[in-house]
């Protein structure tokens, strides 16, 4: 049970891999939900010494206690469990501001959390191409409404209602790393009120 399968899509849609331990002077591992298992898996593959330089940041979401004690007992130099990404983000920024080249970044779990953590790393000059990602768990998307610019988190249907302006939006696969979000566009602009029934996002 490794990678999540996604349908073939356009080139701007992120592609996720499988985390592999890499050489580095320090290791930052950030995960939410089922991504906890991906961290356990990559640590299991790592050499001795990896954990001495590792910092794990975990947001359990609906996995609740499933991974918390397993991650805490790994013996990483630092291990933090937080209630939400918003709660964890200032810690992530602090870690990145202190880090030096040689840091390896591992992200796992939902697209929303991986995308936002990736954006924090990019903002301090870390090339996104060197960040490893592995999708686990929910296929919910973080969506930007192209009209009002508001972000709607955890979107699981297409179409959906923008949580800010209330327009009916369809879910595009076009993705912005800078916004860490997919694009939502008004679905009934040419035929107001004609909104298809929402279907679950694949």
């Amino acid at each position, binding site marked *: 049970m490794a990678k999540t399968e996604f349908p073939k899509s*356009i080139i701007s849609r992120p592609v996720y891999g499988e985390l592999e331990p890499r050489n580095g002077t320090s290791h930052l591992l950030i995960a939410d939900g089922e991504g906890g298992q991906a961290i356990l898996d990559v640590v299991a593959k790592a050499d001795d010494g990896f954990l001495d330089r590792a910092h794990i940041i975990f947001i359990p979401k609906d996995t609740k206690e499933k991974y918390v004690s397993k991650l805490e007992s790994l013996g990483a130099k630092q291990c933090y469990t937080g209630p939400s990404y918003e709660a964890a983000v200032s810690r992530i920024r602090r870690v990145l501001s202190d880090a030096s080249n040689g840091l390896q970044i591992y992200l796992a779990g939902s697209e929303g959390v991986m995308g936002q953590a990736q954006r924090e790393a990019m903002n301090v000059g870390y090339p996104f191409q060197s960040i490893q990602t592995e999708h686990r768990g929910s296929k919910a998307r973080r969506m930007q409404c192209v009209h009002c*610019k508001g972000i709607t988190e955890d979107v699981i249907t297409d179409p959906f209602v923008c949580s800010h302006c209330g327009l009916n939006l369809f879910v595009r696969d*076009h993705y*912005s790393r*800078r916004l860490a979000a997919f694009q939502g566009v*008004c679905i009934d602009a040419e035929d*107001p009120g004609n909104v298809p029934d929402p279907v679950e996002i694949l």
Partner: protein
Amino acid sequence: MGIEFKKETFRGDYTFSNSPEAMKRFPFPFDKDSYMYAVNMEPHTPVREGSVYYNSFDVDEHYVSEMADRAMVLDEDPLRCQSLPHMELHGWDLLELIMVEKAKDYPDLFQLTRDGDKWHWVNKPLGIDDKFTFMDASTLPYGPMEYITRQTQGDFCVLDQREDNLWMDAGMVTTQADWSLDFDIGMNFFEWHAPVPLAHEKGIFVRALKFLLNIQQGAPARRLNWTMTVNPLLDTSPENYHKWGIQKTTLTPENVGKKQHLRVELQTFFRLPRSNGLVFPIRCYLACLEDITKFPKWGRRLHRVIRDLPEELATYKGFIDNRPMILEYLSQFDDGAETSPGVWPED
């Protein structure tokens, strides 16, 4: 050859129109009776005096009104002009390029006097007369890219070149064919073109990128692109799609000739010397079907191109629902006669 600048609108009452002189120089984009994506790049060197291909940055009768429309868009939504922090040098490159070229090509309209880094810029049509210090943004009312592109027709994508790719890291985008700078800023060449159907599979973008990465200083290139727009609406942005999308349903057999516009983009590419970046101006020209079909060759050809266009492209370009009505109108101008090769109407 003084230009008489028109006072007209691209929204609301839509008073925009082309004079007969403007139609003669309209960049009709089809050189044969069918269309498919191609890299179709050529050197941006002067062709036929008076044509839109003659000067580096074409200025026409719509200049002053287009700039007023841009200012309105920016007042409503400042995110249409953005520049990531490392792009200021590119902005100065662009400002220099446009000022030098416009002053050379239109000395009666634009003047540039340079004494070291003390520059004096006069833009007569817009009534601008500014003295500033080159490379010192605090001496301009806006950043260098915004300053000069508020005075130049067309959208501007300012690209950083690195990692064997081009990155859209700055831009001024208010006359776009339905794409969002705010969303696409920071993307590379393949990513911002991701939604375009068919062309990736044909390897178009791989070849186009190779070409663009090697564009040399002083040797710009150009190509044409096109789509269809109902009403002479410059700002067909995704941001405002929920407002303008409905206009597509106002087309009737009676008004299609006046309301349906062919929208042509003259895309040019210039190397920016100080930053080693690239600027990609996208200049939009609009003409209604009625004006286009006054040229018999263009009328015949446009009918055939629209008729035979693959469904994916008609969908992507947003006129699939209106295609039957457009074809019904255009068919009256197609007598089946042969058309001559090339884009020029009279050849």
